Every structure is written in structure tokens, then in C-alpha cells.
């Protein structure tokens, strides 16, 4: 038996979580280092997965399969395609930076109980989330995926509710109330989505008799398994609802601004850049593969919802007074693009959507983490409390600008490539949708540049005058991510090479071909 690389990639952060949690209360700095080491080791394993993965090979590689719960038709089945590899790499890449950025976010305060170990808890929870997210990108068994999809809510919930943003404008008690409200809202929205998916998962079992993605796909291809049109549609809706809550898609998005606003910046990054990607990833892997006909049937509605997300998220981002909520609404707009790309049902659209997931993760991480550094310095999340920061802290302002420009998809930075691909892919099938989505880009320029202008330029506000610039640790967080944005912006080929074959498989699942270009067709 070969080395179970995929299991190891998920098990390593899980082990790290356990060990970190077990560090004695007084040694909280050791817990941080331990967590960082484990996250870096995980990154190493993720790199190994990417190297071992052969883009020209079988659809699912590095597969593992073990009996688990035979009574439920459940097996422990893992395997990665290109999309999975890209997202595992993204997750493993971001977690060390999240840990580094949140280095002091959970330091114990002086008067707290000796047995209350916030630091150990914080970093252990981050690693636990990493383990479950990575395993969910690897799962090729629907039930296994469902379990992880639900279980990862619990550590996320404690991260949001237990470790709030210390830079809150109101009183302490008010802050705690808002934070716990945000955490509960996050959990309930996602739990309801998940429970509706549970009904669909059970329905799938009744129809198919097992949960293996590959077996179900084979049975469908061979004609052994047919679903009545209505059954397939209901099951699709059950799955899609859960993923749309997680992604989040308008009108199921309202938990995200609360959660991202109240959580610390690194946790906000964890939510939007890592955990939410499971939703869009699952649309590609499960909705399209298991229910191709229903996916095509639902496409018009989903495209419209995605467009609403793009425009609505961008408009609300323009109107925000709170920096973190602004980034949250921007993310809603971007998730609209990702979902649009997936359901445009063209290979450019889906490749673009996958790249978008990766690039959005990196660019949002830069913007949000720098915003977090800024907020920690000044102790306020309100845009109006800032002004002229670039004169005081030029490096901070500069990195913030790069993160912002990446968010508005400036050519030369990575998100441009993916946004362009999504728009091209969408336009080929739904020209009107492509045009509407372009408006979202214009709005993105508006909210990013206005944010920069109001906070960084202009006269220096008295409260801002003494803000220190980025420290070495903070720079170590931001610089590699920016380098990556530039690299993937100029040279996205390594990523597209991995992703494209996977997208071709998905396209053939839904029996879609790219529409021929108009000019050629006219000849």
C-alpha cells in the first residue's frame, strides 16, 4: 500500500490542533510556534500533493478507499482532481499567514482565569478548520464530505464568537453581544443549509444506494442509475441551497458581513478565503457531477442570482462605513463572479471560476490582513476615523493599495486573469449576463479607490499621527502574498494547467460544449 498522502495532508493539521490544545497554559508562546510549524509542514505536504498530481492523468488521483460505515453505504474515499489540488494548495498556503497575522490576537489578558487558555484554543481551532477544509476538498464520498461540511462549522463558530475583534467601537459588553450574535447567525444559517442538504443526502442514498461519487457517476454513464426529473431537481436544490448559504449567494448572504465584521481579521480571512470556498468548490464537484440535468435546468435562475450578488454586494460595499464590512460585501460580489463562472457552463467560465477562488483567497487575505493591522493600531473599524495614513505609514498604505488593486482586478495582478476568464466564458453563452457583470468591475473600482482615498490620503488626522508602520512580522505576512499575486498575474500557467483538465471532465459531466465563437460560426 502506498503512503496515504491525502490523509496525511489532512491528518497533520489535525494532529497539530490536538498538540497545540494540549500545551500548558503558561507556555502560550510555544503553542503559537507549534501551530506555525504544523501549518508549514502541512504546506509542505500540500506542495507534495501538487507535485505528485499529474494533470494529464486520471480524473481522481492519489485515491484512497477504506470501508467505514457499511450500513450507510459510506466509505472513506479520497481523491483529488485539479480543482481540489488548487484549493488544497490555497488553504495550506494561507493558514501559516493567518496564524502569523493573528499572532497576538488571542494573548491571555492578565486577570483571566488560569485554566482558560485562549491562545492554545485559538490556534488549535484554526488548525482544526484547516484539517477539515483540506479533507473536504479531498473527499469523493458525498457522506464524508457532508460530515466535514457540517463539522467545520463548530470550530469556526468558536473562532468567531470566542475571539472577537478587540478594536470595537462600542463598550465591551456590547461588543460581546454583537460578536455572539454574529457567531450564532453564522452557525444557524449554515446549519440550516446543512440540514436541508442532509435531507437531500438521504434522498440521494435512497435513489443511488451509495455515496461514492465515482460509482454514482459510473452507474449513470452505464445507464444503471436513472433519476426521475423531479427527484433530481429536488436533490439538486437541497445540495445547492447548502452550498449557496456557505458561498454565500444573495439572498442567503446576510451572515457574512456580521461574521467578518465581528471576527478578528485573520479569522475573517479564514471565513471568506478558505471556508467559503468549500461552498463554491462543492457546486462544481457535487451539484454539476451528481445532477447534471437539474444543474442545466436551474442555470438561468442561478445566473440571475449571481448577477444580483455581484451588483448588490458591490453597491453595498460602496455604501459601507466599516472597513471590514466593506471587504465582506466586496467578497459577496466576488462570490457572485465565481458562481457565475461555474454556471456559465463554459470551460473558460469554470476555469476562471476555479482560478478566481484561488486568487480571491489571496487578494482578500492581503486586503483584510492589512486592514486588520491598521484597525489594531487605531482601535476603530470606521473609515471616517482615518485619513492621511500614507504619510505616516507608507508601507502599510502601499500594501493596502496593492491588496485593493488586486480586489478590483487590475491587469498584471492575479485576479484580473480569473475575472477576465469568467467574463469571457459568461459572454460566450449569456452575453447579457456578461455585460451586467462588467458593471460589477466598475463598482469595484469605486469602492476600493474611495476606501483608499478616504483612509490613506488627505490631511493626517490627529489620532492617526503616531501610527507605527508595518512591523517585520506583519511584513512577512504581506510580502509573500503580494509576490504571489504578481506572479500568478503574470504567469498563471502552472495553475491553469492543473485546473483545465478537471474542468473538461466537469463539462463532459454536464454534457456541455463551449459555444463556438460567433464569427467562426457565421462563415
Amino acid at each position, binding site marked *: 500500500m502506498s503512503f496515504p498522502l491525502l490523509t496525511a495532508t489532512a491528518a497533520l493539521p489535525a494532529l497539530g490542533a490536538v498538540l497545540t490544545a494540549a500545551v500548558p497554559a503558561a507556555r502560550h508562546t510555544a503553542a503559537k510556534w507549534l501551530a506555525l510549524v504544523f501549518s508549514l509542514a502541512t504546506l509542505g505536504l500540500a506542495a507534495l500533493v501538487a507535485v505528485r498530481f499529474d494533470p494529464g492523468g486520471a480524473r481522481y488521483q492519489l485515491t484512497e478507499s477504506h470501508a467505514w460505515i457499511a*450500513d*450507510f453505504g459510506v466509505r472513506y474515499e479520497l481523491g483529488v482532481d485539479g480543482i481540489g489540488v488548487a484549493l488544497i494548495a490555497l488553504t495550506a498556503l494561507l493558514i501559516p499567514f493567518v496564524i502569523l497575522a493573528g499572532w497576538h490576537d488571542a494573548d491571555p489578558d492578565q486577570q483571566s482565569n488560569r485554566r482558560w487558555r485562549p491562545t492554545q484554543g485559538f490556534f488549535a481551532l484554526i488548525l482544526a478548520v484547516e484539517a477539515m477544509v483540506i479533507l473536504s476538498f479531498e473527499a469523493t464520498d458525498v457522506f464524508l464530505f457532508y460530515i466535514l461540511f457540517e*463539522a467545520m*462549522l463548530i470550530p469556526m463558530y468558536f473562532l468567531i464568537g470566542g475571539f472577537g475583534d478587540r478594536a470595537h467601537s462600542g463598550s465591551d459588553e456590547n461588543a460581546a453581544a454583537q*460578536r455572539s450574535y454574529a*457567531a450564532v447567525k453564522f452557525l444557524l444559517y449554515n446549519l440550516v443549509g446543512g*440540514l436541508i442538504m442532509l*435531507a437531500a443526502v*438521504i434522498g440521494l442514498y*435512497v435513489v443511488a444506494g451509495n455515496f461514492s461519487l465515482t460509482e454514482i457517476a459510473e452507474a449513470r454513464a452505464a445507464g444503471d442509475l436513472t433519476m426521475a426529473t423531479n427527484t433530481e431537481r429536488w436533490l439538486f436544490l437541497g445540495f445547492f441551497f447548502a452550498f449557496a448559504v456557505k458561498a454565500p449567494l444573495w439572498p442567503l448572504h446576510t451572515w457574512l458581513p456580521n461574521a467578518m465584521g465581528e471576527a478578528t481579521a485573520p479569522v475573517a480571512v479564514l471565513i471568506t478565503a478558505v471556508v467559503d470556498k468549500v461552498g463554491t468548490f462543492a457546486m462544481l464537484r457535487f451539484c454539476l457531477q451528481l445532477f447534471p440535468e437539474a444543474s442545466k435546468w436551474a442555470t438561468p435562475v442561478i445566473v440571475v442570482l449571481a448577477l444580483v450578488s455581484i451588483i448588490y454586494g458591490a453597491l453595498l460595499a460602496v455604501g459601507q462605513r466599516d472597513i471590514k464590512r466593506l471587504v465582506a460585501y466586496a467578497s459577496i460580489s466576488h462570490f457572485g463572479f465565481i458562481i457565475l463562472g461555474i454556471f456559465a457552463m463554459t470551460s473558460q467560465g469554470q476555469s476562471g471560476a476555479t482560478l478566481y477562488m484561488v486568487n480571491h483567497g489571496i487578494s482578500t487575505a492581503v486586503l483584510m490582513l492589512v486592514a486588520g493591522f491598521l484597525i489594531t493600531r487605531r482601535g476603530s473599524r470606521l473609515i471616517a476615523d482615518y485619513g492621511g495614513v500614507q504619510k505616516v505609514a507608507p508601507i502599510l498604505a502601499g500594501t493596502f493599495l496593492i491588496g485593493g488593486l488586486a480586489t478590483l482586478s487590475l491587469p498584471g495582478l492575479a485576479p484580473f486573469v480569473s475575472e477576465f476568464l469568467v467574463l469571457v466564458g459568461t459572454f460566450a453563452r449569456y452575453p447579457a449576463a456578461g455585460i451586467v457583470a462588467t458593471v460589477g468591475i466598475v463598482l469595484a473600482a469605486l469602492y476600493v479607490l474611495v476606501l483608499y482615498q478616504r483612509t490613506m490620503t488627505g490631511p493626517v488626522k490627529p489620532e492617526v499621527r503616531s501610527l507605527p508602520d508595518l512591523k517585520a512580522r506583519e511584513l512577512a505576512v504581506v510580502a509573500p502574498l503580494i509576490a504571489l499575486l504578481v506572479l500568478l498575474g503574470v504567469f498563471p500557467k502552472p495553475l491553469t494547467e492543473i485546473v483545465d483538465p478537471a474542468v473538461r471532465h466537469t463539462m463532459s459531466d454536464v454534457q456541455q460544449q463551449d459555444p463556438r465563437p460567433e464569427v467562426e460560426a457565421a462563415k
Partner: protein
Amino acid sequence: MSTAAVLSAPAVHSLWTTAAEPVDKIPAPTIEYAQLAPILIVVGAAVLGILLEAFVPRRARYHAQLFLAVVGLAAAFAATVGLAASGHASTQARIAAMGAIAVDGPALFLQGTILLTALVAVFTFAERRLDPAHHGHRVDSFAAEAAAVPGSEHEKSAVKAGFTTTEVFPLALFAVAGMLVFPAANDLLTLFIALEVFSLPLYLLCAVARRKRLMSQEAAVKYFLLGAFSSAFLLFGIALLYGYAGSVSYARIADVVDGAVTDVDPALASTMGNDVLLLIGFALLLTGLLFKVGAVPFHMWTPDVYQGAPTPVTGFTAAATKVAAFGAMLRLLYVVLPGLTWDWRPVMWGVAIVTMLGGAVVAITQTDIKRLLAYSSIAHAGFILAGVIAATPEGVSSVLFYLAAYSFVTIGAFAVVTLVRDAGGEATHLSQWAGLGRRSPLVAAVFAVFLLAFAGIPLTSGFSGKFAVFKAAAEGGAGALVVVGVIASAIAAFFYIRVIVLMFFSEPKPEGPTVAVPSPLTMTAIGVGVAVTLVLGLAPQYFLDLAGSAGTFVR
């Protein structure tokens, strides 16, 4: 006169002979002592416990009783495992004790569950470290002298003398004995007797709390009155069913329902086979059982009893009664009435739906942790009913699995409730639990695990159980019920999460309760609860197999 004498002489003679002969011919009942061993061991231990109560000096009673109860339950469990291992759960499944008791897979599985649950519950009964010592005597959760009027001089002197109610152990054993018979009962009279045998000790146990004694006694009276009502319903149902079938044996009634019986008892010729009697009788019977499992609309007693009873008793009642009562219900529905499936199904659909939704919705407004768990148990009864309704072997095994998973979570959760205390005893008001996670992270984390299991979050036993019953229900054609169940789960998740929020995200109150450090007894109970919760969540296959192989009833 003489003729009369002549005539009467043989008459007298024949009277003598006919009267005498049947006396000889009454067959001695054949009792399969080995197959009934689990029940007999527990009954024996209970009787012995009463003797101990009478003859052992007071200071030695606690240890003697605890030892006896633990050994009795463990031996009974060993006997159950032995029976199952020797094939009585599958190929050797038999009707024992002249048709009164079935020894088959479901019966043995449920008996094993009840015995283990009871064993863990006895540990919590015996806990004596939580309350501060009274007058130099260690005290448990039970009144010094149950007969003393609360607040009286008599009571004070009993407390001062260090009396303890060690009768709780034999009472619990009697209850367990009844519960063992209940799901195995193979005729209606045995069913009724088993019901009374386990109910009466439970009424008593509810009444003997050491603190808040009036509340405890009120709970017991409510439980007793409503329980007596439900027993009456059950008994009336049995009478009607006897009228319908001419027998109380499950197999015989099933034959009459199937129309396989041609020999009509002349005394019952006018009623036998009358479907009105069958339907009404069965409805009354179900009422009695639904009362015991706490299904809406027969759930009214649950919150009061759960709140008022001593918490270890609450845990025991909540877990074991549910196992026994659902076991009996399964046997009735599957053995007696397979031919009547389409008649009882719509009714049970309705009951399941209102139970799931009602329990979950009302639980949201609760402010007492024990009442909250009571309503949660109602919602869980609804989920289990969904599996009962499946009417397939998978349905049976899913219910068996759910019951096993649920009972250990319940015992563990109530054991944690006993730990959180302030000067007035257990602090059960939810506001007192605020910030518990900061004071005692471990206890709060353990309770959070139980709450997540109740909520059915994956990787806990609650999820495996819920998935099993919903899957069985969906396969049995009750897809709509699954959807309702999922909605109810979502509602229920809200109040479980609320408690977690309270424990972890609220600031502790200055005069909040403290967490008592328990003896190894309660720690074992909680530890077993956590272990079972996680094992059944992560690797349930072995236990699913066990429940699956126990899915067939003997007739």
C-alpha cells in the same frame, strides 16, 4: 328424595372427579430460567436489596446496596451478552415462559442497553461528594428520610442523624427489572405488569430529592396521576383487544388480525373480529405507550417531572424509560399489527410531526436547563417515531441504534447538570450557566459535546442515530417526515447552540455557581457518556451491525 340421592351420587362423584382431574392436569409452567436470566438476576438483586435494607445496619447499607446494585446489573448484562453470543438474538430466538416473554434480537439489544444505562445511572445515584457534608455525613441527591415532612423537626433530626435513602438502589433495580420485561413482553398482560413494575418505583424515586423537596414531591404526584391515567388507557385497550381476539397473546392477536383464525370462542362470538374493538383498543394501547415515551400530545408531564425529580433520577428515567417504551412499541407494531400498518401509520405520522416540531419549538422558550432537556427529549421522541414509522427491519435497527446512542448522551448530560452548583444546590437556571466555559473549560466542553450530539452534529453519536432513522424513514416511504425532521432539527439546533453561547461567550457572573469536583463515580458516568458519544459518532459500524442483526422479532 331417593331418586335425587341416586341421581346425585354419580353427579357428586363426577363433580369430584372432574374437579380433581384438571388439578392434576394443570401443567407446571416450563420456565426457561437460563433465557430469562437477565431479568431474574435483576429481580433477585432487588429483593435482596430490600432484605439488606431490613437487616444491615444503617452505616453499612450504602456500600452494601451500591455493591449489590452494581454487581447485579453487571451480572445481568453479562447474562444478556451470553444469551446473545449463544445465538438467542438470531437463530435461537424463542418465546419463553409459556409465551409471556420473547427472547430475541431486539429484546436482548434493548435489555443490554437498559442494563448498561442503569449501571451508569447507579453511579450517579451513589455520588456523595457534590454537596458539602451535613453534620459530618456525606450526602447524596436523595432525601435524608423521604417520609419526613419537608421543613419539619422530624426532617431536621433525620438530617442531623445522617440518614440517607438507600432504598433508591432496590427501587431502581425493580424499575430496571420492569424495563427489561417491557420490551420483551409477548402478551398484553405481561406488558401491563411490566409497565406497572417499572413505573411505580420511578414515581417514588421522583419524590425523594434532598433539596427542593416540595417541587420533587409535586413532580412525583403529577407523574403518578398522569401515569395512572395512561395505565388505565392501556388496560382498557388491552380489554378491548381481548374482546377482539379472545386472547392477550401477541401471536394470537396477530393471527386474528390476519384472518387466520377460524375457531371462534363461543363466549366472545359477538365481539371477536370486530374491527371497531381492534382500532379503538389499539389506539388506547398506543396512547399508553406514547405517554411513556413523552410524545406530543401526551407529553405534559415531561418538563415538570424532569425538573422536579432528583437529577440522577431524571437522567435514568429519561434514558431508560425511553428505551423500554420504544422497545415495547416496536414489538407491538411489528409483531401484532403488521396487517394493520396502513391503519396506524397516518396517526403515527401526525404524532411524529407534532412531537418533533412541538418539542423543538417549545424548548426555545425554556430558561431552566432541566426543562430544556425535557423538551429536547420530546423532540427526540419524535425523531425516533420517524424510524418506528418506517415499518421495515431497517427501521427497527435504526431505532435500536438511536436509543442506545441517545440514552448515553442523556445520562451524561444530566450527570453534568448535577455538577454545576451554588449554595441552593444545583444551579439549573440558564442564566446561572453564563460564562461556565471560562470558569471550568473542561466541564463546559464536555457538556458542549453532549449538546452537539443532541443537535445531531456530525462526528457525534447524535448524528449517526439521526441519519440512521431518517434514512430508514426515507426508504420506508416517509420522505416528507424526513423533511419535517430536518426542519425540527434546525429549530432544535438553535437552543442547543444558545446554551453553548451562554457557556462560552458570556461573561461569568460574580456570584455564579461553581463546578463541584465529583467522585470517580460521576466521572465514570460522564466519561462513559463522552466515550460512547464519540465512538458512535466516528466509528458506528460495529454497533450498527449489532443493531442490524437484532432487527427481527420472534413471533
